[in-house]
């Protein structure tokens, strides 16, 4: 049985041999094809989500941020020109969504609390399971417990590889502040992980 070609939902691919590359998928998605976008999702959502988890320090919030970033990606596919890798474009867009959300959260909190120090939310040492859990999980948990600004600077610099000036620019803070947050994050992690 043949299915006529449909403009609203063109099939992504009939065979698995010639999988379309990200640029093809992005342009089909831009034309309204959600199946192509689903393939892009399958390829890249894990990285988006990992970034959101580490930046947010909270899985529920991370899922909301990942949702918002992916919906925004869909809405802004027109601004993806194909010059960079799609994954890179999506990653930058996700960083923006996360940082915008952090900024508006800071503004909300500033209205509520009287210039409360960001550092006030440092808990004690995170509860780390015994060593059989593994260093990686310990590190993920410890990152989640860092104060927000220190956590975000640490993730952007030490996990994601952004430069100090890029971070200062994107977070709208002074380069010296970036440095201070980074050092503080490392110091807390070393103390908690007993390195």
């Amino acid at each position: 049985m043949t299915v006529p070609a449909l403009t609203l939902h063109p099939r992504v691919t009939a065979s698995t041999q010639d999988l379309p590359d990200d640029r093809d998928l992005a342009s089909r998605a831009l034309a309204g094809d959600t199946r192509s976008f689903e393939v892009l999702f399958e390829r890249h959502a894990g990285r988006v989500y990992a970034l959101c988890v580490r930046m947010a320090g909270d899985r529920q919030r991370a899922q909301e941020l990942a949702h918002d970033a992916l919906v925004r990606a869909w809405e802004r596919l027109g601004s993806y020109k194909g010059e960079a890798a799609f994954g890179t474009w999506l990653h930058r867009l996700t960083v923006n969504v996360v940082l915008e959300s952090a900024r508006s959260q800071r503004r909300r909190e500033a209205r509520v609390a009287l210039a409360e120090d960001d550092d006030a939310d440092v808990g004690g040492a995170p509860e780390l399971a015994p060593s059989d859990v593994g260093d990686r999980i310990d590190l993920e948990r410890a990152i989640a417990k860092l104060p927000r600004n220190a956590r975000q600077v640490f993730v952007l610099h030490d996990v994601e590889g952004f430069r100090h000036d890029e971070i200062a620019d994107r977070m709208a803070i002074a380069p010296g502040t970036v440095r201070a947050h980074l050092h503080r994050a490392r110091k807390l992690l070393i103390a908690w992980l007993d390195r």
Partner: protein
Amino acid sequence: MTHPELEQLNDLVDGRLAPAARHDVEAHLASCRACRDEVDALRATVAAAAALPSSLPVPDGLWDDVRATIDARRVVALPRAPRAARTFSTRTLAIAATALVMASSGLTAFVLRGRGSSPAPVEGVTLLPASWRATESGYIESVDALRAQLDAQRAQLDTATIAAVERALATIDAAIVEARAALERDPANAALTDLLASNYRQKVELLRRATQLASIT
């Protein structure tokens, strides 16, 4: 012996020390075990962070949520969709409900027009594909559960909100009936399957938002 500031050890690890300062710190490290341990710990932390996997398993339902939002905004742009229950207001729900209505109605006709011809009526009984029937019963289960929850919480919602939700539900239901009837006549039509699934997702999403709203007001 004066130890370098921890800031300087960090900058050393990051390669951010000027040559002269770097020379001084390295000379100190050669003779100070405590500072060497500090630098080793910093390097280990930086290396462990860089070695974290770049991807993590995506939570179940993330694609469905993304897809539902995309579908809801497909025809008429929704206002910034409220995600977290705490940001919901009656007003945004009413707006979202209206947009969902606009998104749902008339799409079946649009899909059929997109094919260039209306489906040929099929004589006799046509069964929907078995795979779709399983999918559909999943949606119907979710709808029933949410509907029961919403009915139980009705008292917490004001009448204007209830009216907006009911209007939106009626329109989505009409769209479901329309798409389903078209799919029964043309079971191989993938676009109609998508459309019917999308209508069900919108219904689930609308009910989900309404129950969340009721549980926080």
